[in-house]
């Protein structure tokens, strides 16, 4: 597995890191049965991030599964990490890259492999969401993952640089290029105006579960 990442700056989401650490400590105390807490806390974010690398839902889930099983095997590594959430993201990144190397799957902008959920009150935005995901998939992998970490995980460029092993300026320039491309791809699409809180919403009350919704 990867070496322990050393983050020079405090993470911008301390509450998530703290909760990840609590879950890891619980796994240390109670064994792998306590992995459910960590799964519920992080699985959706991790699959979302891994999707930006693997471009395929099955591969992304395989990467997340491998990383979480590894955590259950050695929970102390995560519990003792200085910044557990970026550490876990980096674990998933390493697993995703391994899977990519092993399978050599070609990427496509097709979204038919995705398992999507849209709540009833957000149904009108479904097409916009699909356009966003299609746009992110059309980006180069290194730009797509920066967008995911910056916008959905609210990381700073320094933290993104630490996770990816690149300077923060490189992460910032990748983000800038990605946003330029996305602004062209998403021209004309409107989104909900009250969506300033990234990925803070729960999944209660969701409906319209489907694989490869058109």
């Amino acid at each position, binding site marked *: 597995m990867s070496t322990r990442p050393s983050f020079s700056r405090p993470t911008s989401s301390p509450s998530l890191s703290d909760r990840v650490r609590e879950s890891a400590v619980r796994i240390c105390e109670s*064994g*792998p*049965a306590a*992995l*459910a807490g960590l*799964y*519920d806390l992080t*699985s*959706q974010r991790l*699959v*979302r991030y891994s*999707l930006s690398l693997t471009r395929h*839902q099955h591969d992304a*889930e395989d990467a*997340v*599964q491998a990383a*979480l*099983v590894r955590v*259950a*095997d050695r929970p102390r590594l995560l519990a003792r990490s200085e910044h557990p959430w970026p550490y876990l993201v980096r674990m998933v990144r390493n697993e995703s890259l391994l899977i990519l190397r092993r399978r050599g799957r070609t990427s496509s902008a097709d979204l038919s492999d*995705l*398992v*999507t*959920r*849209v709540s009833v009150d957000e149904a009108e*935005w*479904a097409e*916009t*969401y*699909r356009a*966003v*995901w299609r746009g*992110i998939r059309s980006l180069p992998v290194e730009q797509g993952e920066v*967008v995911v970490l910056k*916008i*959905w995980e609210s990381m700073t460029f320094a933290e993104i640089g630490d996770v990816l092993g690149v300077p923060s300026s490189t992460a910032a320039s990748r983000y800038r290029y990605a*946003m330029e491309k*996305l*602004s062209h791809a*998403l021209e004309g*699409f*409107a*989104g*909900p*105006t009250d*969506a*300033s*809180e*990234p*990925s803070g*919403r729960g*999944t209660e009350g969701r409906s319209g*579960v489907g*694989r490869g919704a058109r």
Partner: protein
Amino acid sequence: MSDPGRTARERLERLIAASGDYVQPTEDLRPQVLELARRQSDGRREGCRLAAWTLAACLCVTVGGSIGGRFPTAGRGQLGGSGQSDEIGQRDGGALRGWWWRAAETHGSASGADSNASFSRSSSGGGLARELTEVVGRWRSERVLGRAGNDQAKARVRKGGGPSPGASR
């Protein structure tokens, strides 16, 4: 007056942020992850238990072999070298050594080579293997000497003399 470029960037970021929950993990992933983690934990525990038992068995064999090798001498020294006590000492020590000897002999006959040499070749741990090999070698030489003593005793019986005290059976 707000910067239109910045406003467009913020609007785009909000649009992307809103679509974060659009994709979800499949429902099967949760039980799969938990089951796999549980199975791996069980397997690891079994492996640890097996390793502990193997280590304990190795320790027993090593300690038993070394005690068995010294037992006859200790018996003669402590109990004044009487014929009966010496015989008991050899019998008890022989039981310990006999088990170890049979294991070593089986290993040797299977490989068709000298048991000591094949044992040390098959053992990966250098120190323990050396010690075990020494124990086997010591016991083997004692056994050879014991056989020679037995032959002498039998010869004496054939000639009409009684068995010498302390002769191994």
